[in-house]
């Protein structure tokens, strides 16, 4: 079946620390995306990354499609990075975007 699994489920960081979030996905999933849901509930697109590496400021993401995983790196974390990070993939038929359960991040000042 279609599976998108994220780890860790929860993460607490001190401001300034770095972190890595992981997303494993099944063979029937591709076209990975990473989202940040802020404390107000808004879903913000971070990366559309079917494969390879992308960077945007303090955030970067790498997807290794052949090994079915994607990583989101957060460097020099800030309190505004707090929220839930979701990865999502599209099923092979291309009709559905399926979400992982998310990683809840809290960055302490």
């Amino acid at each position: 079946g279609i599976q998108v699994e994220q780890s860790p489920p929860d993460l607490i960081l001190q401001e300034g620390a770095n972190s890595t979030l992981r997303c494993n996905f099944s063979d029937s999933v591709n076209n990975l995306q990473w989202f940040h849901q802020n404390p107000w509930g808004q879903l913000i697109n971070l990366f559309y990354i079917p494969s390879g590496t992308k960077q945007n400021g303090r955030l970067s993401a790498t997807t290794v499609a052949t090994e079915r995983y994607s990583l989101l790196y957060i460097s020099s974390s800030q309190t505004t990075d707090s929220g839930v990070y979701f990865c999502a993939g599209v099923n092979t038929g291309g009709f559905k975007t399926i979400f992982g359960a998310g990683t809840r991040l809290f960055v302490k000042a």
Partner: protein
Amino acid sequence: NAGVTQTPKFRILKIGQSMTLQCTQDMNHNYMYWYRQDPGMGLKLIYYSVGAGITDKGEVPNGYNVSRSTTEDFPLRLELAAPSQTSVYFCASSYRQGGANTEAFFGQGTRLTVV
């Protein structure tokens, strides 16, 4: 460019009432989706549409109906509201061409409470 727009942002319904959540996108995307997010949980797919006139069920379709008469609009209908439908509802859209999907864009969400 407004992206994906949902209305209303908040709504309280009584058990048994009905309502329609509106969603419109101005990106000419062919794919549109409705998700619900229960407190502390991820997003679950309710219904999706691959183009005007074509809709299909997602993971949790019971209690909902959709229609897609135009490319831009994808309303979600709740016929007999139940407390289990208390949730935040997100509409999204993306584009698929030549076997590849573009990234999905989400609306701001509709927070629905059924009492």
